[in-house]
């Protein structure tokens, strides 16, 4: 039996070595784990988002890395399944990843406790727990962009400021029936009370590809504005149904998940005028994107189709990595190599007014505030591109923070 056991152990060891082996650079590389959902629920965004992340990291590496340290990525598909995400996470952690991005709400939620105890930085831009903005409770989790609550307040505030005020209006929230879809409801309720408007929520079942009954009902409610709150295929269905049911385009406002693809899918010029919350600028007119074009895309080192460069989700991907690299740079400057999760966390907390050279709102992350200020802007589809209608701004952060505090307290109690 003994030789067999030894053989078994040998095989296992070899497999482990083989799977974990990565190329050695001169200076110790920094490892970012991008363990995302490429095959299931988040396919509508992962492709472009991930491409943006990889292209940006390539750009960083092409231009000397962080203080000479190259950034290595550990990429896995988790298929949105927590157990696969956790395995990938444990493996990545063992390989020395200091930052992890699941880009999947269920996986991020399942991993929260672990990253907190393992002291690995987890970024949860535009997904995951909104209350992780509370840096004291979630020291290693960084939403670093506007949470859904902040998005809802910005959208409501836009109506308030630019579309004839909120008072006395009927606002309809059409949302996917999931925790994500219901997330803005408490904040909007508070706002409704404060601003004296009427709010009604309409839920449709996931994945939201068929919503006709919801909209027949909604039309009879005669709302002044409709906020659509879904993701993926359901979004373009919502837009179509809204237009079909006589909601004027300019009165349709969307959560951040509305992009070029959706405009294409809605077809024609039907989506012109539809508004959305925007966390990161779109298009290729940003210096950072120009750099990527020059150093990465043109030499043919891009991750995917060059057509995707500059799309909404691509740019969001770029922005997440820009923030992360900035944090790593700050941490390395301050504490020196090797980079650890703890140092990286502190690096994040040193970020001040970082705007990725104008592509995103200037964010400031502190030990208390991991959201970075909750900035965003509203943009509208003009038939070809998303056109910003406002400057970067944040609204009603007091209400948002009330919600953050409440849920963070819940988390400390085990929720």
């Amino acid at each position, binding site marked *: 039996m003994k030789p067999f056991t030894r053989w078994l152990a040998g095989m296992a060891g070899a497999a482990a070595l*083989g799977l974990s082996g990565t190329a050695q650079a001169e200076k110790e590389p920094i490892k970012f784990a991008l363990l995302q959902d*490429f095959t299931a629920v988040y396919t509508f965004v992962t492709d472009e988002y991930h491409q943006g992340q990889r292209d940006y990291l390539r750009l960083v590496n092409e231009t000397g890395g962080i203080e000479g340290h190259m950034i290595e990525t550990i990429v896995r598909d988790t298929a949105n399944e*927590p157990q*696969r995400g956790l395995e*990938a996470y444990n493996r990545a952690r063992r390989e020395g990843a200091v930052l992890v991005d699941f880009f999947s709400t*269920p996986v991020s*939620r399942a991993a929260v406790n672990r990253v907190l105890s393992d002291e690995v930085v987890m970024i949860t831009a535009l997904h995951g727990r909104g209350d992780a903005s509370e840096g004291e409770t979630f020291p290693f989790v960084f939403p670093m962009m506007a949470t859904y609550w902040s998005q809802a307040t910005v959208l409501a505030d836009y109506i308030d400021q630019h579309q004839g005020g909120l008072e006395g209006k009927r606002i309809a929230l059409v949302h996917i029936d999931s925790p994500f879809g219901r997330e803005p409801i408490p904040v909007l309720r508070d706002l409704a009370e404060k601003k004296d408007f009427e709010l009604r929520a309409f839920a449709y079942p996931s994945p939201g590809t068929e919503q006709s009954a919801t909209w027949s009902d909604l039309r009879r409610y005669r709302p002044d504005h409709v906020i659509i709150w879904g993701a993926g295929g359901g979004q373009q269905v919502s837009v179509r149904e809204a237009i079909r049911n006589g909601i004027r385009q300019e009165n349709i406002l969307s959560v951040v998940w509305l992009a070029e693809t959706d405009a294409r899918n809605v077809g024609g010029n039907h989506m012109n005028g539809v508004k959305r919350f925007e966390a990161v600028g779109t298009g290729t007119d940003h210096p950072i994107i120009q750099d990527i074009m020059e150093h990465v895309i043109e030499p043919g080192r891009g991750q995917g189709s060059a057509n995707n460069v500059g799309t909404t989700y691509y740019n969001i991907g770029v922005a997440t990595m820009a923030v992360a690299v900035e944090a790593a740079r700050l941490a390395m400057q301050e504490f020196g190599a090797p980079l650890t999760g703890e140092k990286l966390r502190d690096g994040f907390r040193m970020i001040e007014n970082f705007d990725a050279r104008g592509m995103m709102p200037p964010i400031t992350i502190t030990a208390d505030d991991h959201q970075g200020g909750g900035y965003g802007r509203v943009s509208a589809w003009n038939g070809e591109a998303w056109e910003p209608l406002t400057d970067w701004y944040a609204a009603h952060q007091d209400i948002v923070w009330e919600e953050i505090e409440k849920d963070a307290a819940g988390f400390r109690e085990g929720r």
Partner: protein
Amino acid sequence: MFYRLSGIKHTRYASSRALWPVTADRRIMQLLVALALLAPFFLSDLYLTSYMLPWLIWTAAALSLTLLMGMAGQLHFGFAAVLAIGAYTSIHLTRAGVPFEFALLGAGLMSAFIGVIFGAAALRVKGLYLVMATLAMQYLVEWVIINVPAISGGAQATLSTPDVTFLFMPLQSDASLYYMALLWTVVVTLLLLNIKRTSFGRALVAVRDKDFAAAVIGVDPVRYKLLAFFAASFLGGVTGAILAFCYYQAVTPEQFGFNVSIQLVAMVLVGGLGSVIGAYLGAGFVLLLPIVLTNVLAFLATYEWIPISFNLIAHIPLMVYGALIIGVLLYEPLGLAKIYDNLRKYFVVWPFRHTQS
């Protein structure tokens, strides 16, 4: 070889029904148990917590389902919902201050009682229709969990497991979580092995094979169908609780979705319907294969050995997984357990080629 059938004879009824009458089998079992017990000492925490631990827990879940699908012949495509009921019950109980040991019991009972409602459909229909009925119930349970914040845990729909102890052992370290899971899986395994050789198991099989013939020898088909659902759901509920406390440590509704139900069925079938060892093999196959494939492909991709887009690379495990399920079912409908059995028989009669049975 190490298998030797000669010299094994039974002079007492009890010994003829032993679990492992063949000495070599018994030795292998002892070895495996020893390895399992020592695992925390020689396995790195990655393999312990990301492979062994989920594998054991999913095996327990697959075994629970085996009791229902394999032995009692009642198909169940909503077993993830049963696990979910157990997980949520145990968390709410422990948060209410109930000791973990009793919370496990409560989880099992709650799952068992709701599981019996699932079983009510089995009194009317079987086969494909039962598949559909349980599938619909899975959806209903999921919907209730998602839509009742008091169950799912408010806006974030997440509940973390509180720190607990089991028989004075705090469940915090990787090793303690592992031993907890191991203990439960061993209990479930023994239970299933013994059910197979006692009147309870025989009655289940009788109802499965021919319920009318079971009735004429005094087995109440209704009762045993419901008992099967009760017992399997009880085991499933406790397994769900173990899954929550020992592995996820925070539960969300997505962890118990429809695809998990399908995976559990796949474990049972690919492993070999009704086989205990099959549940182990099937759980390993279904749970770990996509992970290993993903890792192998990612490894190859790191060196750019496969010049295809990452989108395609990411989808390959899905294809291979599907293809392998198809492959196993086509090649050996009795599953991995049968393949193992063939191998074993080969060694039993080695160096000869033919087997007697």
